[in-house]
């Protein structure tokens, strides 16, 4: 569980602390990562400086190989960097789908040339990536996707529609599953990289129930993907695509859940504020108290499981089918927490906008609604349960998926 790195790790910690102190602009302390906002305003000079510093150091992607610009650190050192960033009130300015999903996958499956071209801009935070997976008719049954990639010699011509492409309106590149053989299902899919800045690509944001538009529809009309941007073999994209999904699940459940649960006041504190306490100092509503403690227990067990998984992996950070367990457990606990939050706030937890509600209350409502997507995207809760049944428990598959 603990890091048994001893003195060497402590030396590294001091070094990391000093570097962060020297490079992290004080004006950004405690501020959220501007990349996490849906409306991306032009970055300030300090935000740009911090991104550049972290990008050059490679510590935004601490465990990625140094030869492609990564930090080249061990998993233990990587955690030290995270801890020291948190201690300094600093966010990691290097992120997005390139870091969470595409980079690790390309490092595993890409050619040397592909890695040299695409990894360094991700490490530096220069280019953003989006995910071209789902289609209107291919959601849970992803492998039924129909977006065609036609062989035109040195390039593919791409035609079709993707949906739920997160952040496509800000993306420079799209990693995309396309059909290169219509006679087979899984074996007719290829993994290609598409430049989003070309005439054949059109992006339309989709308004969600929380009122925001984090996802888009993306239309490809005779868009071009150069052959050098085919990752893995032709018609061999399914394996790579699935591998990437494991990284996605790990990212959604936050590995250790820190990303999912780090925000906001503890539920018990909120409950005491909005519902009050009885003469013994307990949450006054006994029924609510029971459900708050149930959620606290689920959350704690989830965090302990994340820590155990990390310890058992002994530095091997490659995700496995167990990410399905973590995604289901993490998203369920988080959704319950969001439901409890608005229940605790009562009629103050029903505000949409305007006066009569504070920022925390309005954010709780939007967060509750937005969070409903977490059990749908990245493979729905039902698909994760299929994966657990099939790959971990060895039960028969009724969907004939792979």
């Amino acid at each position: 569980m603990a890091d048994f790195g001893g003195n060497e790790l402590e030396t590294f910690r001091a070094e990391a602390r000093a570097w962060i102190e020297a490079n992290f602009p004080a004006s950004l302390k405690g501020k959220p990562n501007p990349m996490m906002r849906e409306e991306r305003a032009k970055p300030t000079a300090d935000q740009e400086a911090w991104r550049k510093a972290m990008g050059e150091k490679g510590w935004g992607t601490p465990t990625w190989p140094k030869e492609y610009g990564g930090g080249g650190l061990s998993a233990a050192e990587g955690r030290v960097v995270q801890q020291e960033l948190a201690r300094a009130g600093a966010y990691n300015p290097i992120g997005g789908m390139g870091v969470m999903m595409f980079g690790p996958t390309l490092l595993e499956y890409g050619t040397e040339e592909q890695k040299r071209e695409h990894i360094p801009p991700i490490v530096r935070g220069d280019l953003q990536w989006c995910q071209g997976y789902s289609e209107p008719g291919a959601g849970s049954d992803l492998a039924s996707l129909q977006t065609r990639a036609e062989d035109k010699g040195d390039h593919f011509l791409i035609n079709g529609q993707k949906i739920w492409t997160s952040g496509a309106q800000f993306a420079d590149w799209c990693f995309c599953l396309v059909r290169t053989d219509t006679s087979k299902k899984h074996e007719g899919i290829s993994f290609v990289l598409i430049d989003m800045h070309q005439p054949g690509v059109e992006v339309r944001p989709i308004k969600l129930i929380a009122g925001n538009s984090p996802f888009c529809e993306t239309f490809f009309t005779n868009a071009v993907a150069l052959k050098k941007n085919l990752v893995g073999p032709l018609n061999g994209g399914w394996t790579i695509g699935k591998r990437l999904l494991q990284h996605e699940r790990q990212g959604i459940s936050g590995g250790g859940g820190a990303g999912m649960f780090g925000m906001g006041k503890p539920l018990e504190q909120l409950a005491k504020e909005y519902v009050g306490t009885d003469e013994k100092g307990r949450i006054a509503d006994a029924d609510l108290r029971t459900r708050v403690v149930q959620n606290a227990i689920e959350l704690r067990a989830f965090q302990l499981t994340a820590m155990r998984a990390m310890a058992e992996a002994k530095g091997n950070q490659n995700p496995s089918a167990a990410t399905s367990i973590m995604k289901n457990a993490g998203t369920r606990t988080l959704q319950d927490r969001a439901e409890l939050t608005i229940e605790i706030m009562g009629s103050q937890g029903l505000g949409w906008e305007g006066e009569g509600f504070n920022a925390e209350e309005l954010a709780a409502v939007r967060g509750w609604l937005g969070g409903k997507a977490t059990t749908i995207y990245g493979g729905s809760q039902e698909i994760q349960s299929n994966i657990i049944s099939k790959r971990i428990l060895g039960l028969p598959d009724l969907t004939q998926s792979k």
Partner: protein
Amino acid sequence: MAVLTEEQSMLKDAAKSWVQEKSPVSAFRKMRDSGVELGYDAGAWNEMAEMGWAGVIIPEEYGGSNFGYLSLGLILEELGRTLTASPLLASGLAGASALILGGTDAQKSEWLPKIAEGSVVATLAVDEGPHHNPEKVETTFKDGKISGKKTFVLEGMAASLLVVSAKGPKGIGLYLVRADDAGVKRQRLHLADSRGAANIEFSNAAAEPLEGGPELLEKVLDRARAGLAAEMLGAATQAFETTLDYLKTRVQFGQVIGSFQALQHRAAKMFTDLELSRSAVEAALTAIDNDSPDTPELVSLAKAKMGDTYHLVSNEMVQMHGGIGMTDAHDAGFYLKRARAAEAAFGNQAYHRDRYARIQGY
């Protein structure tokens, strides 16, 4: 389904066809997009009033039809199916109930005919914090004046007559306050469910007492709770039916997703819960019509069970629709948002489970 009289069957059929023709969910969407302050379509409300719906529980001598609460519940259920926003619950049920049960002859004569014709919207103002807690009242009545603050007043911006709970000489009572009184200040609330609501502050506003103490307040609240549960029953039933249609039509893995047993069992559970909820809601409304002594426990049973069911169904509606259910263009989000607002109004599930236990003596 309760055994209905001929009148009730006719009322239900009329409501069903009006809702389908004149007030589909697209009408609610249009109202929401318009941002209208009332939180409902005034034209649609006029049509409802013309059909006599605002006077269903009001005695004939005051311009109503005296058909009773189960009858009104049937209409609210149909309106709930398409999330039709209107002051029927606040005014034609809750406000009217307060006057019927506690009004003097003069008060009834003054207000009930106008409520029945829909020209006056009345509403209850009972809560003072984020949670329903009718016993906790700081608002005071003294020398014909009322002062205090009320929260989450349904149709608070549309109402011209406010039925306000306050501490008076004989404990907590209900008082009539005109919304245009100089001592009434309203703040519109923009809620997630896009329905009309307000916080209201009273500063020495002129008030007239209704007859009856805390028991009047509970009786009026129980009527409002049962009526709201009927609306929730309609909404949850429609949310379920829409989801069931999707399970039968959406194809993945070469088959309709409803062929997967994992989804079948969840659909079966929802259907079971809806049937149980319907029994509870109809029993509560019938108990009110019969002035039965077990009305309070049946009302808490209905609001708690219905709340749990609508909560479940509204979540499953989004989950089973997948990504499309997350979009604003789909109706699932409307049912989800309305569910939480309806759950919170007049006591959520935790409140009513606790009240049920208290009434039963444990």
